[in-house]
């Protein structure tokens, strides 16, 4: 590397202090902005979740009134879905590593990138405001189902406007990434020479771009319904509440893939590095990302098996839902095959990746029960669903995020964290997580409905277990974050390539310089070229 290397963290730009961050157009700084914001929202959301768990520890009123509880699960949902998991991996690690992994200096539109972050913050502030304004937090659930959402007196308009703005931010990020992948790849890097994380981000970006407008217009219709009574979703005026569900899930089902595809991408980066082995079935993994993104658009109706859809629609959606399970299965097979005859180094990122695979398998396999119409009828709208999507979203996306931060933190900050504490935190997270969510599967099958403030006493054993798990989980998160902060503050200096990885980010110093590459990066035919 050249002698005049200055890391992007120390680089002096036009602005000083905080303004050098919030007006930065450098993709790495924007990634940090997203990371700090998302981490804060995640903690708020987690605390709200914990409050709900405390409420549910015994039947009847424990610490709050039903209205507060209904507000809590709505807010928890809005924060976690729209402000944490949807932007999560793609806005933080996508922003930081997508350009580096394809050998670019920045994303295609740096200013637009900053604008996306500002929109994200504006939306988030509105979302928080909807909790605090006069009429009280929205109590519709994050799904905003009409006609309840058009009749309740709470701040639904503020919350939906927030979701609309957050969606717009997500669209612009996706747009930026697609153009970046098409136009900014280093010379010689063909599509099939890209590492698999950029592949996943690319597939995700398409979903962001094409699915989000539909929910955008739906939310505007909902607002117009409340303001003018346009009647699209109001049965008294000839409208159809089920149409809202169609429109909502046309976006929100693909949105699940916005959350999980980048997670799969991260895991696909981590496993070969710690096995020191070429990833098994590169093309199959790349193409299955696109397949998931594509078919993911066509299965939204499996959220609506009990809504009174036509039999034909239930048949169609069930069949397609089962087929979309296959590409995910292929990815798991490929990950495990990559470990075969590798030289496995059990460092914290790899431990997180293993936990991810296990939890993702549980989430995915329980998804089969939801894909099948007969069994879905039984568990729809029960805590089984709650458990299932937390296994996918938290166990999947969340653990992938933790894996990613442990994997890339040395590159991002140039510092190393303590492995022992990280491992302890990982194991505690894993135990707490399973204690929290697994019992919900069991009582869900027995019929415990979700979004219930109160419940029959026969379900209490599971609720107590879950609450204990919740406490362990939150403590483990705090332990993990503390360890990372200590690492960043006082940790040892990280070398350029601490894990002996082969992708482009490990060929530049830690932390990277402002323009990432001083000379044109060397592109290998296969990004995972271990000797």
């Amino acid at each position, binding site marked *: 590397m050249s002698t005049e290397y200055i890391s992007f963290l120390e680089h002096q730009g036009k602005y000083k202090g905080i303004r050098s961050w919030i007006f930065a157009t450098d993709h790495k700084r924007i990634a940090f902005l997203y990371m700090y914001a998302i981490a804060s929202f995640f903690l708020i959301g987690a605390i709200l979740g914990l409050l709900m768990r405390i409420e549910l520890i015994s039947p009847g009123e424990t610490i709050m009134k*039903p*209205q507060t509880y*209904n507000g809590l699960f709505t807010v928890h949902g809005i924060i976690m879905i729209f402000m944490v998991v949807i932007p999560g991996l793609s806005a933080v690690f996508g922003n930081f590593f997508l350009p580096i992994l394809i050998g670019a200096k920045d994303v295609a539109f740096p200013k637009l990138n900053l604008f996306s972050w500002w929109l994200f913050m504006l939306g988030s502030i509105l979302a928080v405001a909807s909790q605090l304004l006069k*009429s009280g937090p929205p*109590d519709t659930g994050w799904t905003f189902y009409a006609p*309840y959402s058009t*009749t*309740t*007196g*709470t701040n639904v308009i503020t919350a939906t406007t927030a979701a609309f703005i957050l969606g717009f931010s997500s669209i612009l990020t996706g747009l930026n990434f697609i153009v970046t992948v098409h136009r900014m790849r280093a010379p010689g890097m063909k599509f099939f020479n890209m590492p698999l994380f950029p592949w996943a981000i690319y597939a995700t970006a398409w979903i962001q771009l094409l699915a989000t407008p539909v929910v955008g217009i739906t939310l505007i219709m909902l607002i117009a319904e409340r303001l003018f*009574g346009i009647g699209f979703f109001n*049965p008294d005026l000839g409208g159809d*509440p*089920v149409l809202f569900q169609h429109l909502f899930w046309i976006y929100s089902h693909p949105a699940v893939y916005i959350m999980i595809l980048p997670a799969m991408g991260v895991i696909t980066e981590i496993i070969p590095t710690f*096995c*020191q082995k*070429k990833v*098994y079935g*590169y*093309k*199959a993994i790349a193409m299955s990302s696109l397949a998931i993104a594509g078919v993911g658009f066509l299965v939204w109706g499996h959220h609506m098996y*009990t809504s*009174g859809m036509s*039999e034909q629609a*239930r*048949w169609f959606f069930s069949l397609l839902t*089962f*087929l979309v*399970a296959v590409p995910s*299965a*292929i990815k798991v*097979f490929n990950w*495990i095959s990559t470990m*075969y*005859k*590798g*030289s496995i180094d*059990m460092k914290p990122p790899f431990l997180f990746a*293993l936990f991810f695979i296990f939890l993702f398998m*549980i989430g995915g*396999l329980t998804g*089969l*029960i939801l*894909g*099948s119409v*007969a069994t*879905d009828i*039984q568990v*729809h*709208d029960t805590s089984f669903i709650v458990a299932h999507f937390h296994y996918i979203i938290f166990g999947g996306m969340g653990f992938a995020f933790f894996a990613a931060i442990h994997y890339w933190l040395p590159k991002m900050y140039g510092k190393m964290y303590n492995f022992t504490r990280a491992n302890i935190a990982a194991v505690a997270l894993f135990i707490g997580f399973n204690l929290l969510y697994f019992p919900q599967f069991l009582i869900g*099958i*027995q*019929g415990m*409905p*979700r*979004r*219930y*403030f*109160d419940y029959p006493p026969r379900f209490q054993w599971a609720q107590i277990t879950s609450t204990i798990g919740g406490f362990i989980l939150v403590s483990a998160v705090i332990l993990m974050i503390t360890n990372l902060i200590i690492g960043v503050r006082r940790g040892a200096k990280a070398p350029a390539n601490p894990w002996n990885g082969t992708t482009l980010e490990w060929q530049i110093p830690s932390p990277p310089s402002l323009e990432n590459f001083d000379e044109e990066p060397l592109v290998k035919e296969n990004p995972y070229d*271990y000797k």
Partner: protein
Amino acid sequence: MFANNSNFVQGVDTAFYLIFGVAIFFLVMLTTIMIVFVIKYNKKRHAHAVQIKDSSTLEIVWTTIPIILVLVMFYFGWEGFLPMRRAPKDAMQVKVIAKMWKWTFEYPGMKQSDTLMLPINRAVKMNLFSKDVIHGFSIPSFRVKEDVVPGKNNYTWFEPKIIGNYDLFCSAYCGLSHSYMLALVKIVSQEEFDKWLAGLPVKKAEDNNEGFKILEKNGCFSCHSTDGRKIVGPTFKGLYGSKHDVMTDGVTRNITADSIYIETSIMDPNKDVVVGYPSGVMKSYKGLIRDKDMPKVIDYFKTLK
């Protein structure tokens, strides 16, 4: 859980067992392989990774097998579900009326009950109606669940097979007292059912008051009672002409509930909030209750002494 409480249990549970079986098989197999690899190929024992070539055969095999498996699972899931849409023609018809946050069951002959009493071994078709928002008709023990969507005539049916008491939950989130929207399902013998039905009072004639209809259509009675009970908002009983302490812009004042006050409370509910009730719970009904209907509403209030 796997007792044959209704005719659907077997179909649904077969699909359950099958999918669970496949799921557990894969989970255990893949986890075991993963753990074995992690131990066997640990850096300490296996210092150098062996690069292996991709095998197209293997990829095809592990694409085909899951496809076949999911198709089998799909088939059983569908077979378990289809009978749920095929209600026998001679099934007893029960009308289920859902409103915030109460279930009412209407039997042939205009007889209404809060408990779902049903005879054993007889097919019964539940015709689902909602008066306000979406509710969910769910009896887990019978493997029955269908949303109750306003303006849409959903139905479900089943045939109870075991005498006993079961829970009926509202499964679709419907607001404040969602978790208290429960009902009891009692399965009894045919004779006992006949006796019970004969003793059930015939439903009162529909209240023909215009004002009542307007309020009912707008779902007012889910928060306001007419019998003096406090639900979410104050009761309507004896409201007209009574005196109340209200908060207006943070100032408490005592008012008489006249027609102007009632109209303000409907059109701009957060202006004067009765002391002891939270602000912001009720939304404005401007545009939903027309100005020309207001006198009818006021007249109705006058009848609630």
